[in-house]
């Protein structure tokens, strides 16, 4: 969108400014060139209004050749050529206008003015063209800074929303409904087991709330939370769900965003183990190599399972979260191959005491 031609109001203001320029030209060039007031105004005011429209082309020059560091020569050349071209057209138009005035008989003085002031007219035209260019460059810079500001606000809003949604998505309410159903069943057959399950569930929920409030927690705490979740699911799924875990000592102390693993273990249970008649083993591993913490989670899955529920959502949210936090877009790598699902998370290994 052209910033001036697209709005009648702006165009009117702009033309008014050029009317002023036209009057100045009448004084500067007309009177000094030996003309009288009237002929100078009749000659220069319409001409400057025409040039006002011609110089609007500077907008496109400014858009095509933005002020970028290292491109000064290109921009300069483009501006010089455009100014020469625009001013050339203007001077030609001035010639035409002078002849028209001559023929109509309004004043032979116009033609005289044109002949004497032609070189000066050309220079003034080029300068005016550049003035308009500068104006457009300022406008572009102003818009860009406004856009950047809005984008920043939008980004931080998005980040906060993603964070909130991620937190909310961490605990699937159906997990709680299913657990309560299991407890309800156990109360008649195994009261002690029902009580154990109640305590497990309460522990898990309390820890989720506590850890979720922190920015960073040690990986060991995150893994302990995943253990609690899986212990509850083991009550529900029985011996179909098996778990192995390997954590090297260097990895356990690394700081991670809270509830990082929760959507992953939930996926592994719901879309992996629970979809297999004979169940399978969830394998978790965490290692630290140099400055990178690598966490992997593997589980068997049925390649022919019906994919109706939102499988990718948890992964997608996690990806966004880690991108927000570490700026790396490749922190999460997931793949499914021949009935094995594998997720790998690579984040910077940071050791410290959480605030």
């Amino acid at each position: 969108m052209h910033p001036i031609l697209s709005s009648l109001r702006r165009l009117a203001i702009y033309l008014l400014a050029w009317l002023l320029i036209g009057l100045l030209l009448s004084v500067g060039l007309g009177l000094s060139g030996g003309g009288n007031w009237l002929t100078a105004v009749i000659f220069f005011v319409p001409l400057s209004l025409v040039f006002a429209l011609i110089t609007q082309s500077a907008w496109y020059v400014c858009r095509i050749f933005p002020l970028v560091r290292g491109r000064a020569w290109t921009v300069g050349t483009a501006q010089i050529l455009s100014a020469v071209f625009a001013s050339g057209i203007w001077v030609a138009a001035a010639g035409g206008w002078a002849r028209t005035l001559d023929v109509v008989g309004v004043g032979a003085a116009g033609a005289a003015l044109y002949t004497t002031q032609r070189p000066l007219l050309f220079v003034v035209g080029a300068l005016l063209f550049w003035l308009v260019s500068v104006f457009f460059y300022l406008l572009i810079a102003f818009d860009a800074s406004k856009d950047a500001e809005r984008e920043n606000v939008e980004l931080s809003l998005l980040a906060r929303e993603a964070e909130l949604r991620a937190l909310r998505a961490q605990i699937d309410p159906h997990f709680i409904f299913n657990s309560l159903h299991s407890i309800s069943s156990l109360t008649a057959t195994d009261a002690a087991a029902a009580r154990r399950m109640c305590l497990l569930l309460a522990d898990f929920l309390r820890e989720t709330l506590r850890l979720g409030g922190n920015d960073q927690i040690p990986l060991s705490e995150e893994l302990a939370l995943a253990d609690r979740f899986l212990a509850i699911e083991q009550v529900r799924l029985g011996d179909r769900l098996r778990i192995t875990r390997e954590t090297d000592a260097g990895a356990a102390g690394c700081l991670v965003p809270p509830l990082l693993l929760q959507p992953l273990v939930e996926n592994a249970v719901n879309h992996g183990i629970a979809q297999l008649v004979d169940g399978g083993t969830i394998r978790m591993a965490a290692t630290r190599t140099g400055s990178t913490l690598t966490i992997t989670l593997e589980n068997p899955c049925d390649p022919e399972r019906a994919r109706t529920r939102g499988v990718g959502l948890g992964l997608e949210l996690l990806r966004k979260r880690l991108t927000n936090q570490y700026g790396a877009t490749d922190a999460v790598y997931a793949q499914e191959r021949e009935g094995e699902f594998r997720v790998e998370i690579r984040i910077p290994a940071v050791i410290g005491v959480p605030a």
Partner: protein
Amino acid sequence: MTSSEEPALRVIVVDDEELARALLRELLGAHPDIEIIAECGNGFEAVKAVTDKKPDLVLLDVQMPKLDGFDVLELIGTDVPVIFVTAYDQYAIKAFQVHAVDYLLKPFGAERLAEALARARTRIGAREALPAKALVSDARTTRAPLERILIRDRADVHVIPVAKIDYIESQDDYVQLKVGDRQLLKEQTLAELEQLLDPGRFVRIHRRYLLNVARLARIEQAVTESRVAILQDGTELPISRSGYAKLREIL
């Protein structure tokens, strides 16, 4: 609530979780007029048990491996009333579309179960069975294109991923699926199945044939005006004029 003169309801309980089955066993135990004739841990067992034992009512979990509750219902048809049992409420609308008797949300108690059983008795008393075909198409219209086709062969169930199908041939009220060396019959018309499959992958090349486009090797001109599709395994299928137009659109 129930009188002793009524005949006992013969019920099959289907859930992949032992604890959930145990709870139903316990709660149903309070109803003297209910007899659990089978417990199944997955959909295959459920289809087999329903076929062999002809129950009066099935209590059916939705989330199960391989075949979910809706798959099982599609395979057993409406001959048997079904009460769905699940922790997820998002399937409720679909459950009513397939004319389930009731929809129990986990966790539920004795009262809610009794209510569902009473509803089942009313349904059985009214004998309002629905034709299986209407049921399947009702349930499917809201779904994405089929990814797999379920075929019931007496008590056995075959799950065929659509990518493995070479072509499907119409046989009156049945369709015959050609899957590698196997030929499988399913009670459904070719037109119905065509609607359920992805039109970008399966093309009705002839009144009697629905072709998996991925299997097409080339098209040959036979006698005037008629064409033949040659599949990768050398099978030849006739192509009608409108079938040829559809094929050209996709290729």
